[in-house]
């Protein structure tokens, strides 16, 4: 920045020294404009793209959500808040919200705890350290669709590997899809499998920034490995934990591909099972936006309500996680 703004000035001075005539007002104004406007121009690409692909769709969705707006008809009637009241009185919406929160809790809590423990293990001196660290990221590289398809087969009722193992261990088969709790567990496993390694690496990076002498002091005082983890590491990497909790929450509340593929290619993939037992909010949105009627107005109302729900839950999580320091 400094060189960019300095250079025209020095150049201008050099020019005026070489010539007796002072620079014209046009040239002068151009220089001042360059000083003032250039920085904005440099950062403009991001903001222009953000306005076009972020802000505008957001605002337009709000506008659409106040209309009876079907993709199949050319007529759009303004209905005010009708879509929102219809949404809030639809039991299927509350069902989807409950499912989403349940899947979120089932996937995020074990996932982050496991990530913390794995990261702690990876800080220790291990043979083949780089191998383990890189291996952590492998599940995250796989595409969501591939993960969901493979896990849906593993959780199959009749020919699934998991049921086969359960049966050979003497436990009964489980119809994973039909039950509410079992289907949530299956979906949570898919999410956790994909994201645990990713969070582990983030924690690992944060842990390596914790000064070694703190641990040495704790070690001399006789603190065990586990005590060191919860008394020293966790409080010291708190900002990172806050970050992962919020990011996982935002991701977890928008889960779509896993339940959609788990339900199969028929109508159950749209409603999240015949009893809507694993329909998430995004799936509910998809049902209304891209199925019968193509009700974009209603679906936009779902999108904005989801936005509010995500902000609310992320905020609650933040307030909750902030308490870590006061506990220590």
């Amino acid at each position: 920045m400094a060189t960019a703004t300095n250079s025209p000035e020095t150049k201008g001075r050099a020019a005026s020294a070489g010539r007796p005539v002072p620079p014209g007002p046009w040239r002068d104004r151009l220089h001042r404009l360059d000083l003032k406007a250039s920085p904005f121009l440099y950062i403009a690409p991001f903001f222009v793209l953000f306005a076009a692909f972020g802000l505008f769709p957001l605002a337009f969705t709000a506008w659409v959500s106040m209309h009876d707006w079907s993709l199949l008809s050319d007529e759009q009637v303004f209905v005010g808040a009708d879509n929102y009241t219809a949404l809030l009185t639809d039991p299927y919406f509350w069902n989807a919200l409950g499912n989403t929160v349940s899947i979120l809790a089932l996937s995020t809590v074990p996932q982050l705890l496991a990530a913390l423990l794995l990261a702690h293990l990876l800080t220790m001196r291990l043979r083949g350290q780089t191998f383990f660290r890189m291996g952590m990221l492998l599940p995250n590289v796989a595409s969501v669709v591939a993960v969901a398809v493979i896990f849906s087969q593993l959780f199959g009722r009749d020919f699934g590997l998991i049921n086969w193992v359960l049966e050979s261990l003497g436990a009964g088969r489980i119809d994973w899809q039909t039950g509410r709790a079992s289907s949530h567990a299956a979906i949570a496993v898919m999410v956790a499998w994909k994201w645990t390694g990713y969070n582990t690496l983030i924690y690992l990076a944060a842990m390596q920034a914790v000064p070694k002498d703190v641990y040495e002091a704790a070690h001399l005082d006789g603190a065990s490995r586990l005590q060191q983890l919860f008394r020293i590491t966790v409080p010291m990497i708190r900002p990172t934990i806050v970050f992962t909790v919020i990011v996982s929450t935002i991701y977890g509340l928008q889960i779509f591909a896993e339940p959609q593929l788990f339900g199969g290619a028929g109508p159950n993939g749209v409603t999240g099972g015949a009893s809507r037992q694993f329909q998430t909010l995004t799936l509910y949105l998809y049902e209304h936006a891209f199925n019968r009627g193509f009700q974009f107005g209603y679906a936009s109302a779902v999108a904005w309500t989801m936005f509010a729900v995500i902000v609310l839950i992320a905020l609650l999580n933040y307030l909750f996680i902030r308490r870590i320091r006061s506990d220590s």
Partner: protein
Amino acid sequence: MTRKPFRTALAAGTAAVLVAAGAACSSNDDDGTVTLTVGLFGDFGFGPLYEEYMEANPDIVIDERISEFADHHTSLTTHLATGAGAADIEAVEVGYISQYTASPERFHNLFDLGAGELEDQWLDWKWQQALSADGEALIGLGTDVGGMAMCYRTDLFEAAGLPVERDEVSALWADSWRDYVDVGHRYLEATGGAYYFESSGNMFRAMVEQAEQGVYDREDNIIVESNPAIGEAWDLTVEAIDAGMSNGLEAWTPEWNASFSEGTFATIICPAWMTGYIETNAPDAAGLWDVAAVPGGAGNMGGSHLVLPAQGEHAEEAYAFIEWLTAPEQQLKVFEETGNFPSTPELYEDSALTDLTKPFFNDAPVGAIFTDAARSVQPQYQGPLQGDVLATLGQGLGRIEDGSQSPDDAWAQVMNDLESF
């Protein structure tokens, strides 16, 4: 002075990004050839025909895109609404066709392209399914029809002490679905509770498709509650579920695919196109499956049309191609390749079709069986959300099947769901 090129480059780069982001993609054929895109759900068996057509018409290039059944119609509707993205030629399944004939302006009117004189080529009802309500516009040409039959496992029937010969099996349930369910009771008793069919939704749908009136009346009202045929079909299906006849598989899931080769159920309703699925999904079960007549008379289940979205630029070339592709000679080749049954009655006299047998199905005379089925179909009126209404009913049966609801509760929820349509 040295920084100027850098700044120019930066400005140019920024501009390029913005232009690229804003520009729409368009396909030009500068070398004089025309590329026709074809959007299908699943493999229609058109592959060899593309080759043949491109060889005869060197200026045409055909580009096929295949998507999943459910995704296909969703994205087609989106593309029609937004006016971009649809293929030049799109397949539409019969459950969705009336949704599209309701807005014929979004398609090229095939009457303007010369389809009028071809009317006699197709089954009357197949032709009418693609007509707009006022009869002024034709949006598609028929490919296959899904005249129904019943596929059954000979080995499982034999083990249960039931007849194995296909004519005797047809005679078992020649009169009605009531007989079919009674045979089911016998099968359960003999086998100690093996599954009789794969999914109750399929059985229910077959019964509904055979009724004089389906889920819609001609004024496009949903008549699920008032139509006695639907109530009877529901009750009989519930009886079969309660007895434990259903394997509870949902169509098009991996479990469903696997069950064909495992042989977990004894019968499945077989529209012509289903024979192809069975062959692909259970390659090891050759000779174990056979084809009998469907209970309760004839009915149609499935079948498709090829339509030309109005946004396509090459209407004439595309029309010429689908006219060729849906002509009897080509439909016969598709049938031989996949089992999708022709919708052009002139073939029904043709021994190349009627004498066709399939080794996989114990040399069953599938040509003759499906010809009889297609001939005796009484067309049923299909409403705009036909596919969705049937799916809602099917899910209700699914909830009974998996034990999460009683039949009464499931019916009540179906009625409730249908009110929002």
